C-alpha cells in the first residue's frame, strides 16, 4: 500500500453504561481493502464498538464515549448514522431493514432513487421528481454484480429466502458511491452454511475492490477463512491484534476466553428412556420460509431428540407449529393426551416450553428487567412467584422468590449483567439468548423445545449452554427436543437426530452415524428408514 494513513483508526475508545465499563482503551487501525475479523465473548463489547463507530443514537443517549475515531486520519464524530453514511461507512444490521412489498431494486435504492427533474420540482421541491426506473434497475444490478451473487432485481422481498434478504441489505450498503468501510455484525447467524459460503466469497470480492470490512461472527472458522486480521476483545479490552495468517480456531477461542477451550466431549453413558412422550403425526405448519409439509416422529420420555437440516427446509416450523405460534394441523399427543394446535396457551398448559430462535420477536420483554423476564412465563402459566392474599382473592408478585430465581440462573448460565434488575435490552445479544433459556427452565416443563439455543453465543458459552441442557435433562428427567442448524452440537448432545428436508423428515440417525450420512440426508437423499 503506497498510502499509509489507515482508512480507519480507533484510538483509546472507552465507553461505560451507567458506570459499568464495557470498552476500555480500545485502539486499532484498518487499511483499505482489509478484512478485519472482530471476535470476543458475549458481552465483550463488539456491538457497542460498532455502534460508536456508526454514531448510533443510543451511544449519545447513554453519555457518549471516550477516545477518537479517525477516518483517513481526520477525527470524525458522527452525531447520527446518516453522518456515518455520508462519511462512507455502511453497516449491515442484524435485523433486516427491508420493505417487504418492494422489489430487490426498490429496496437497494431505498431513499436514494435516481430521478428525473421536471417542472414540478421547480415548483414544489425535489421530491416531485419522477423516479428513473431503468437507472434504478441498472444501479441495483451493478451492486448485485459487485457482490457476485444471484439476485433478481424484480423479486419482492417478501418472497425471498433469508439469505437473499441478507444480500439485498449488503447490496444496499455498497451501492453508495462513497462506501469505504462496511461493518457486518453477525451477518451469517441466520444463514445456512451454503449461503454463508457465498457471503464470505462476496466479502472477499468487495475487499479486492478496496472496501475495508469489519466482520463480526461467532463462527470462528468463518473468521479464519475470510479475515486478513483478527482483533480479539475480552471484557471490553483488546487482547489480541494479529494477522489471520496461520491462526487456528482453537487459538482464537483461547484468546477470547483467556483459557483453553476443550472441544465438545461427548459423554453419553447409560441412557434410559421411558415410553413415548411426544407423538407427532402428519404435522403441517404454515410458517413463512420454514414450511412443514408432512412430519411424523415420536420422542421417548427422557430423551434428547435433535432436529437438523438446512435453512428453509422446515426444521424451525416444527416447534413453532406444535407450540401454536403458526397455523398448523395434524395430530400431536403429549403423554398420550391430545394437544390442541393453533393455541399457544394449550401447549404451555400441557407442560411444554419453547425457547424460540427469534429471541427479539417472541422471546423477551426487552423493556423489562431480567428477573421479570425469567419469571413471567412461569407466573402466567403456573401462577408461580405470586403471593396470595385473602385466600387468593388477589395476589402480588413475590419479588424475593423472583430475585432468587434470577440470581440462580445468572450464575448457572453465567449471564453477563449488572444484576437482576437490569433491562433485557441492555444485555448483549448472546446474553439475551441465555435469559430465554433461563425463562424456559423456570417453567419446569416436562417437554422442552429449544430452537437454535446457541445462535449468537460465543464458543466458551456454547459448551456451557449445552452442558446445562444436558444437566437439566439428566437431573429433572425433562425430555428435550432441540432444533439447530449446527450439526455438531446436535451430534454432541442428542440421542437421536432427525434431518428435515423439504418439509419432511428425510431420516433419523444416531449421533454416532458418519457425517457423510447426515450430509446425504440434507442433500435430499431420502433414507429408507434409518432409526436408532
Amino acid at each position, binding site marked *: 500500500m503506497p498510502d499509509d494513513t489507515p482508512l480507519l483508526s480507533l484510538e483509546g475508545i472507552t465507553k461505560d453504561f451507567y458506570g459499568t465499563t464495557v470498552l476500555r482503551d480500545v485502539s486499532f487501525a484498518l487499511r483499505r481493502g482489509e478484512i478485519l475479523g472482530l471476535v470476543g465473548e458475549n458481552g465483550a463489547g463488539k456491538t457497542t464498538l460498532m455502534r460508536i463507530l456508526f454514531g448510533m443514537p443510543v451511544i449519545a443517549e447513554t453519555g457518549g464515549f471516550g477516545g477518537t475515531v479517525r477516518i483517513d486520519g481526520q477525527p470524525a464524530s458522527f452525531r447520527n*448514522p*446518516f453522518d456515518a453514511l455520508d462519511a462512507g461507512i455502511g453497516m449491515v444490521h442484524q435485523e433486516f*431493514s*427491508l*420493505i*417487504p*412489498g*418492494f422489489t430487490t431494486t*426498490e429496496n437497494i435504492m*431505498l*431513499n436514494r*432513487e435516481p*430521478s428525473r427533474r421536471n417542472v*414540478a420540482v421547480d415548483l414544489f421541491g*425535489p*421530491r*416531485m*421528481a*419522477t*423516479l428513473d*426506473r431503468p437507472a434504478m434497475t441498472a444501479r441495483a444490478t451493478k451492486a448485485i454484480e459487485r457482490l457476485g451473487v444471484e439476485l433478481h432485481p424484480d423479486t419482492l422481498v417478501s*418472497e*425471498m*429466502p433469508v439469505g437473499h434478504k441478507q444480500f439485498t441489505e449488503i447490496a444496499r450498503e455498497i451501492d453508495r458511491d462513497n462506501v469505504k468501510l462496511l461493518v457486518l455484525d453477525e451477518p451469517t447467524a441466520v444463514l445456512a452454511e451454503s449461503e454463508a459460503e457465498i457471503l464470505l466469497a462476496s466479502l472477499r470480492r468487495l475487499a479486492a475492490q478496496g472496501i475495508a470490512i469489519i466482520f463480526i461472527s461467532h463462527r470462528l472458522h468463518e473468521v479464519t477463512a475470510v479475515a486478513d486480521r483478527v482483533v480479539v476483545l475480552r471484557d471490553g479490552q483488546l487482547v489480541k491484534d494479529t494477522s489471520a495468517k496461520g491462526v487456528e480456531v482453537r487459538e482464537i477461542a483461547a484468546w477470547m476466553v483467556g483459557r483453553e477451550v476443550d472441544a465438545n466431549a461427548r459423554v453419553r453413558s447409560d441412557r434410559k428412556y421411558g415410553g413415548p412422550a411426544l407423538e407427532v403425526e*402428519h*404435522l*403441517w405448519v*404454515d410458517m413463512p420460509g420454514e*414450511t412443514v*409439509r*408432512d412430519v411424523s416422529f415420536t420422542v421417548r420420555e427422557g430423551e434428547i431428540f435433535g432436529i437438523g437440516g438446512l435453512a*428453509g*427446509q422446515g426444521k424451525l416450523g416444527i416447534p413453532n407449529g406444535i407450540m401454536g405460534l403458526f*397455523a398448523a*394441523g*395434524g395430530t400431536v399427543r403429549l403423554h398420550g393426551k391430545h394437544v390442541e394446535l393453533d393455541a399457544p396457551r394449550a401447549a404451555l398448559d400441557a407442560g411444554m416450553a419453547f425457547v424460540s430462535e427469534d429471541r427479539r420477536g417472541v422471546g423477551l420483554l426487552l423493556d423489562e428487567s431480567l428477573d421479570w423476564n425469567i419469571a413471567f412465563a412461569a407466573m402466567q402459566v403456573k401462577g408461580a412467584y405470586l403471593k396470595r392474599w385473602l385466600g387468593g382473592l388477589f395476589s402480588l408478585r413475590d419479588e424475593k422468590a423472583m430475585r432468587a430465581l434470577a440470581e440462580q440462573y445468572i450464575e448457572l448460565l453465567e449471564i453477563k449483567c449488572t444484576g437482576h434488575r437490569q433491562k433485557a435490552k441492555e444485555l448483549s445479544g448472546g446474553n439475551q439468548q441465555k435469559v430465554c433459556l433461563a425463562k424456559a427452565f423456570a417453567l419446569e416443563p416436562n417437554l422442552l423445545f429449544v430452537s437454535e439455543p446457541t445462535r449468537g453465543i460465543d464458543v466458551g458459552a456454547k459448551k456451557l449452554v449445552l452442558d446445562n441442557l444436558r444437566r437439566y435433562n439428566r437431573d429433572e428427567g425433562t425430555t428435550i427436543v432441540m432444533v439447530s442448524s449446527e450439526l455438531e452440537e446436535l451430534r454432541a448432545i442428542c440421542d437421536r437426530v432427525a434431518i428435515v428436508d*423439504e*418439509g*419432511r423428515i428425510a431420516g433419523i440417525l444416531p449421533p454416532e452415524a458418519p457425517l457423510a450420512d447426515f450430509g446425504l440426508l440434507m442433500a435430499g437423499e*431420502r433414507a429408507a428408514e434409518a432409526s436408532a
Partner: protein
Amino acid sequence: MKTPFKLPSAARVRRFAADNVVVLIFLFVTAIAVPSSKLSGTYIIQDLLTRYGRNAFLVFSLLLPIMAGMGINFGMVLGAMAGEIGLIFAVDQGIAGVQGLLYAVLVGAPIAILLGWIAGQVLNRARGREMVTGYILGFFMDGVYQFVVLYLMGAIIPITSKAITLSRGYGIRNTLGLDSVRQSLDKLLKLELGSFDLPMATYLVIALLAIFIVWFRRTKLGQDMRAIGQDQTVSHSAGIPVERTRIMAIVISTLLAMVGQIIFLQNMGNMATYNAHRQTGFFAAAAILVGGASVAKATIPNVLVGVGLLHLMYIVVPPAGARLFGSAQIGEYFRDAMSYAVIALALALHAWRKRANAESARAGLRGAASGAVAPAKMEGGAE
C-alpha cells in the same frame, strides 16, 4: 417460493367470491332493483353519467392516504368544508361561472392546506388508529365550521351580500343558492351524444386528476408514501421523513377533497350550508370500498367501478322500494342501510380476507398430511 398450485374449480369460485363479496352483493341487490324500479335504461344511464361527474373527484381524494398506510381518510370532510367556505365567498363576491369556481378553489386552497396540515399532525399522534381519529376529527371540525360560518361570517369576517346572510345580520343562511356558478363546469363543454348529455369539462378535470395520480405514484414522494405505507420504521431508518410524508398525503387529500366538493356542489346547484359535508367522507368511503378497494390497497379502477356501482344502487333502489313496498321512503332507508353495511362489511372483510388468503395458500402445502398416501416425491416441491 410460489408453487403453481391449481385450485379445484369450486374452490376457485369460492375464492373469487370471497375476494369480491362486496361487489357481488351489490350487483345482486341492484340486479333485482333495476327491473323492479321500472326506470328506463336511458334514464339510468343519464343519471349515472351525471353522478360520475359529480362524485368521482371526491372519491379520488382517498387514494393517497391509503397508499401511505393511513387507511381511509375520513378527515377529507375538512377539505369539503374548505371548499364550501370558498363557494360562500365566491357567491358573496358575485363572481359567476367557471371564474367563480376558480375563485372558490383559490380561497379554499389555503384553508384546506391549513386544515390538512392540522389533521396530519393529529393523525401522526394517533398511529394505527388513523381512521377513527379522522372520523372524530371531522365531527370536531364540523363544530368549528359552524362557529365560523354561523357566528363569525358577517360579524367579524366581512360578508357583503344581504341575500346570503341570516336576517339577524350575521351568519350564513341554511341554504345557499349557487345559481351564479350552477353547473358552470358541467356546461362548459357539453357534448350531446344521442339522447345523453355528457359534461365533458368535468370529465376532463377528473381525467387530469387520474393522470396526476398515476404520475404522482412515480415520483419520489409517491415512492416514499408507498414505503411508509408498508413499514414506517424501515423507512425512517433509511432517512425518509416519515411524519412529513404522512402529513403531505393528508394535505394533498384534503386539497383534492376541497376541489371535489366544489365540483359536487356546482352540479347540485345549491348547498345546505351546515349539512353538505356531513356525509361526504362516508359516501366516498362507501364508493371506494364497493369498488373493491380495501383500507390497505386502492387503485384507480376501484374508484371508477365503485362510483358506478354505488350510484347505480342509489338511482334504482328508492323507486324499486316504492314499487315493491309502496313507499319510496323504505327504499331510501334501505339504500342508506346498504351503504353503512358496505363500510362495515368491507372493514370486517379486510381482516377476514387476509386470513382466507393465508388459508388457501396453505392448502397447497399440506402434502399428505390430510390423509392421502404420500408419494415419495411431491409434485409441489420446495424452492
